């Protein structure tokens, strides 16, 4: 057998390479700029635009972030909230996805459509009713208020359902004949095979919640409940903006998501492809 020949690209390789380098450059420049600012003193920030480098390098901006605000606490809060939301989302979404893809019950697909319809409602519209409900449940200004409303997601259910639909139903049937009930089929057959989907959901969910700004902002009053994105605001006070500190803090805040992304990027690519090339 001969290998199928790939179609010749309309653009020469060099042109594609140059294009990609330019594109990469536009992504990297703001990032480099951020590093430069984070190492400057506040007075030198304006100079940077002229010289392109800080006249005095000030690495002490980084420890200063921890001195000026309770940055470690914000870090912990972000991790704690994003971690719990991610864990709960993976659990609830996978269970719902199993019910929507592997269990036959009357009206299943209609209910799923309703479920999907909630994705069409903009988050901003839901903000006020969600806030009212959370308030009524007595979850204002505590961790549960930050975690519980985020623990259920139609998007995650949809993502995992699509993933589970690609697993042959004969596996459930074989397991059922082997002696497994729904719980075992779910935990021992379907979940292990949904692992790439679960990882994708976990990454999306963790990043989304780690970066979440508005919900923690309106739901928390105490400083020790604040998460990183809100903590960064402390450097932008009425008495002036401390740009180098904001940059230093946000660079540090970026580290966990970047590590997460680098470790799990192959799953992310797979996740984006889910449903794109089915069967």
């Amino acid at each position, binding site marked *: 057998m001969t290998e199928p020949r790939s179609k010749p690209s309309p653009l020469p390789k060099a042109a594609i390479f140059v294009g990609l380098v330019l594109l990469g450059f536009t992504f990297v420049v703001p990032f480099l700029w951020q590093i430069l600012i984070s190492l400057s003193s506040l007075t030198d920030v304006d100079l940077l635009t002229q010289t392109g480098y800080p006249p005095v390098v000030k690495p002490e901006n980084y420890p200063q972030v921890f001195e000026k605000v309770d940055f470690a606490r914000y870090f912990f809060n972000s991790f704690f909230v994003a971690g719990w939301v991610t864990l709960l989302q993976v659990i609830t979404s996978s269970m719902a996805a199993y019910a929507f893809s592997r269990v036959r019950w009357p009206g299943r697909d209609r209910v799923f459509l309703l479920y999907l319809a909630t994705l069409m409602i903009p988050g901003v519209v839901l903000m006020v009713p969600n806030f009212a409900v959370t308030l009524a449940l007595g979850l204002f200004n505590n961790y549960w208020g930050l975690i519980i409303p985020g623990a259920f997601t139609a998007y995650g259910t949809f993502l995992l359902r699509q993933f589970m639909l690609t697993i042959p139903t004969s596996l459930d*049937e074989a397991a059922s004949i082997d*002696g497994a*009930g729904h719980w075992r089929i779910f935990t021992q*057959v379907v979940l292990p095979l949904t692992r790439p989907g679960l990882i994708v959901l976990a990454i999306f969910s963790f990043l989304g919640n780690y970066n979440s700004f508005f919900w923690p902002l309106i739901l928390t009053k105490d400083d020790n409940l604040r998460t990183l994105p809100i903590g960064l605001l402390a450097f932008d006070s009425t008495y002036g903006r401390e740009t180098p500190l904001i940059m230093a803090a946000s660079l540090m805040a970026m580290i966990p998501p970047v590590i997460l992304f680098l470790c799990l990027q192959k799953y992310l690519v797979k996740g984006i492809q889910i449903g794109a090339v089915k069967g």
Partner: protein
Amino acid sequence: MSTLTLTNVKKTYDGNITAVHDFSLSIHDGEFVVFVGPSGCGKSTTLRMIAGLEEITAGSIEIGGRRVNDVHPKDRDIAMVFQNYALYPHMSVYKNMAFGLMLRKMPRADIRKRVEAAAHTLGLHELLERKPKALSGGQRQRVALGRAIVREPKVFLFDEPLSNLDAKLRVTTRTELKNLHQRLKTTTVYVTHDQEEAMTLGDRIVVMSAGHIQQVDTPLNIYRKPINRFVAAFLGSPPMNFLNGTLHEETGGTGLVFDFADAPPLRMRDEDRVHLQPHVGRAMVMGFRPSAMSETPVGRYAGRGNALRLRTEVVEPLGDLIDVSCTTPKGQHVIARVTARPDFPVARDIEFHLDMDHVHIFEPGEFGRNVLRA
């Protein structure tokens, strides 16, 4: 080992589409029964109802004398081999085979003993640590078989287990299956659309069409005495020849002849008169297998009006035999399987002889009854 009884089993989908009508069958202890029929005939649905994977709309199913209509698949004491094998991709071969036993809380040492014995029987002992994706199609099929064997169930159910294998492997695996059944003597229901598989494997064959049982009998009886035209056409390769014509009294004679209007009529056997008499003067269909034809006079009625003059069109050599595609003067198609010879003439009119002991007369229509089947 156990008996399996289906009584008036029916399956209806969404209240109006009936996949299986009134299916009744009694399968003996240790018997190998094959359900065969074209796609959509209800054979797989019936098998899935036995397994408990589909609910029964009406009727009852008994395994070993126990009614299992509402019993969960895991409690029916059956094992099933699926068309796509349905091996758990994330488990090793060993775990795939042991999974059912683990769920039944069997002691580990016993599980190991059973799995190893099955692996040895099936030649899988060196593959036990592999994952299914590292196996060939034939090996996967054997693992699926092993998973069924270790359970030592009352009934084996096979849903077209060989259809994903290549032709050569299908034949060898078929023989292995038959061997295995002869050793284990477990009651088996096997679904296939392949008539050759059905003929070679089954103690009895159930031919199905459109949700109905057409005939249940031994392979040889079904081949030799098909109950209707559908069964006759479905089994046998090349398929049975059918010629349209009419039954008449022989002019100036004492017998009955089958007249297909474009060649000399064929004289029917005297002993068949009693069955054919009610159909005299009616349009009927004559059926005979390609092997019932020969270039020399054959059978007890040789030379007594059993010659067919046909125009040869295509010759397909098979070794000792050849298949000759021919047409009658009015264009009815006939295949003859005769002894091979190197210079068989093509595009010539040749006289073939028909063994009248192997001729069937059917009523018209796809499911026309075989009136000669006593």
